[in-house]
């Protein structure tokens, strides 16, 4: 008997999935990457604009999926753009999801082995992490949505707690001047900040499972806005706490911010363990949802079962994750993925939407 398991998710669950997908490596690295690119204290402005762009791009994807209710992108792409073009684009997206999944796993392994488990080999960390992940993914979208609903409140509570504590070393002076060097530096950082908001592309898959697919745009706006609040808080607090140069100089500025103060008399003196806990959970959710998207895409595209693809993709993701030789190569891999995503999810959905309108009209 499976009365409740209808493989459908509510609008709220879709928003939760989107937030959990967006929040990932960026929480720890965004202050550095954006500070490097922008170079002035207006980083927060770049974050806001990046969020707005993500909402725009996400809305296009939401609108596109909305036109084909109950079907994932991988099912309707061949209808929209023909067998070959649609197939190739779908394949590209599957590869993208596998790569970003691998990237998240690798980043997680780097951070974990650096801060928590010195001496434990990366592969052991990665394998344990992936085995727990597969337990979730084989259950389908339903358990994924429900787990994310447990993870997100924990994330919010601990994040708010930790950021409030870091107010101790926050100095507003460090955030000034506003637009001291004009608007040009902000523009240079926009690409970096936009890439921190990678995630709305999941709508190409999950809209098919939504009880009310029409609410997909609401999901994009709500999800990106809440994620933007997280990023904004992170960037402002890190720059206000460590100063712009401090943020630029450290690999994981957010952790360094939390490590830079201690509280006496409490059960915990330092709070980076709490931050790492929620961060690992966030990476876990990004990893699982991308693995799910890749496997779901492949099963829809090739019209085969879902679970075999999950098991097949695991070794591939593992190999991709282990390919970069050091942390710099890992970040390079992230940059490449970002550039690909810009075209794959910024431009392609727009073309598809146009094509879809044309087809509808011709009929």
């Amino acid at each position, binding site marked *: *008997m499976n009365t409740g398991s209808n493989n459908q998710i509510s609008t709220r669950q879709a928003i939760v999935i989107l937030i959990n997908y967006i929040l990932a490596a960026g929480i720890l690295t965004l202050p550095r990457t954006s500070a490097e690119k922008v170079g002035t204290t207006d980083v927060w402005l770049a974050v806001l604009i990046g969020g707005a762009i993500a909402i725009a791009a996400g809305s296009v994807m939401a609108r596109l999926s909305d036109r084909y209710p109950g079907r994932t992108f991988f099912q309707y792409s061949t209808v929209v753009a023909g067998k070959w073009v649609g197939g190739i684009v779908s394949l590209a997206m599957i590869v993208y999801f596998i790569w970003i999944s691998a990237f998240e796993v690798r980043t997680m392994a780097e951070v974990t082995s650096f801060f928590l488990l010195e001496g434990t080999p990366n592969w052991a960390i990665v394998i344990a992490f992936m085995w727990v992940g597969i337990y979730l993914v084989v259950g389908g979208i339903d*358990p994924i949505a429900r*787990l994310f*609903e447990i993870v997100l409140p924990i994330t919010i509570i601990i994040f708010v707690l930790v950021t409030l504590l870091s107010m101790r070393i926050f100095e507003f002076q460090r955030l000034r001047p506003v637009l001291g060097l004009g608007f040009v530096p902000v523009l240079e950082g926009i690409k970096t900040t936009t890439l921190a908001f990678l995630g709305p592309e999941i709508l190409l898959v999950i809209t098919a499972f939504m009880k009310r697919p029409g609410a997909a745009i609401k999901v994009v706006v709500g999800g990106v806005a809440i994620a933007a609040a997280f990023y904004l808080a992170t960037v402002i607090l890190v720059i206000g706490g460590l100063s712009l140069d401090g943020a630029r100089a450290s690999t994981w500025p957010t952790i360094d911010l939390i490590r830079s103060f201690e509280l*006496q008399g409490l059960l915990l003196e330092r709070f980076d363990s709490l931050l790492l806990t929620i961060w690992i959970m966030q990476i876990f959710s990004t990893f699982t949802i991308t693995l799910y998207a890749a496997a779901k895409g492949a099963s829809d595209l090739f019209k085969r079962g879902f679970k075999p693809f999950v098991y097949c993709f695991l070794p591939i993701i593992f190999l991709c994750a*282990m390919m*970069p030789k050091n942390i710099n190569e890992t970040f390079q891999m992230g940059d490449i993925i970002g550039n690909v995503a810009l075209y794959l999810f910024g431009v392609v959905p727009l073309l598809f939407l146009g094509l879809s309108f044309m087809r509808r009209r011709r009929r």
Partner: protein
Amino acid sequence: MLRWIIAHIPSGYLFLQAAAVGLVPYGVSRVTAKVNAMAMFNPTMGESRFPEDEAGDPLTGKFDEDLAVFEQWIENYDDVGIRHFELGGDSGIRAVVIYAEGLSDRNVIHRQILQALMGGEFDVRSTGTLSEQVLRQLPVLKTKECGNIRQAIGQVLEGWAALIVDGVPEAIMLGAFKGVPRQMDEPESEGLIRGARVGFNENLHDNTAILRRFGENQSLFIQKMKVGRRAKRNMAIVYIEDVADPKIVEEVKSRIRRIDLDSVPESGYIEQMIEDSSLSPFPQIQSTERPDRVFGALMEGRVAILLAGTPFALIVPATLSMFLQSPEDYFERWLPGTMFRLLRFFALTVSLLAPSLYISFISFHPGLIPTKLAMSIIGSRVNVPFTALVEALILEVSIELLREAGLRLPKPIGPAMGIVGGLVIGEAAVQAGIVSPILVIVIAVTAISSFAIPHYNIGLSFRMLRFVSMFCAGVFGLFGVILFFLALCIHLVNLRSFGVLYAGPLVSYPFKDWKDFLIRAPLAAMKRRPKILKPKQPIRKG
């Protein structure tokens, strides 16, 4: 570009690991699927489980022949008695009463059956058939007719008295049961400060009667069934017809019909045969001795299963939050109710994670706890030759041993156990340098927390899981604990009890249900029944 790729092709060793990454979970999934299929109740069994029920020797209506068959049957039952007599004392109409010693009430047979029939007047010419005349004379509440010798014998062995009269084609079965009275004492395993001092006993009728006594309620349905193939036992399914989701009721009935066991000695057998996942560490059905708990669950739209011969009733569908609630939460005012509920959730977390956090902080991240504390712990561990995991395991296993041993000890020896356990294990182990004193505190707090969990069987689940989390912490430290927590949550969100999500209001956010989850809202504010149970009548009518 090509050179870059070639330079980054991983070594052969990595390919081996990659294969393991994919194959191990696949293998595990295959094995669990096999085990599940094996443990699952048998879906091929249809409605009519006991074909032999319908077969059997029909009563011929010829007194001597039938009597001979009966006597053949009861030859081997030395506890079944037979009494020959004539109706009206000397009317010449022969009759026998067959009864089981101990199961049938002697007084009823003497006064209401034998006395009435021997003293009555019977005339072949008077109105009505002979069986009608007999029934007219019998001051017995429960009577029925039975046309099959095998069935009649079966009923005699249940406590009915069989009356066979010359000239009546059927056996007349008379309800002359003898109850085995037991006080409805307060259950020892689930005591309360405030609340009715009543618990179920081993008598099915008494148990259903207590539920009736909670208030007149025409829609409280009690439906009896039998389970067990060889030793058939009475059981009852209880639900409130216009509240419980009919789908759940139907599912309960069909799962019980599919039980194919020789005998069902205790409701735990039913529980294990109808639960959803036998591999899960969590109990998916609540068992309780408290009628107030059962009645509260019925009012929420759940279904109760009572089995004759055991005071433990089952409640389905169960959710995790149920196991952390106590009827007292509702009997006391809502503020203390809420506080104690929050305290229990805290206790649950501590009992699950405290030892593993100790292990991960001591052996992997001493930098994360306050420096002074870290210093004192490490100072106290100087003489301990073991790793934190082994140290914690030594103490934790001995606590479990103490508990298990204490459970079955005769009461006078109990205190002696406490002295041996407390002194030897606590004091001496520290002095001998086997464990550190801080760990003794951690384990003691863990044990106390696990006692605060109001349900014994959910406590068992968390005791098992505590060991798993300790091993995770021993291998991966805090990272292992996080992964353990995630895996546990994944299991919980996948688990269902009779179609209802086990993690209950924690997921899918039916926020209205949260009024009775972490907190216990004022009674007046809880206007609705739990939404996750999909009750037919969602509003609790005042």
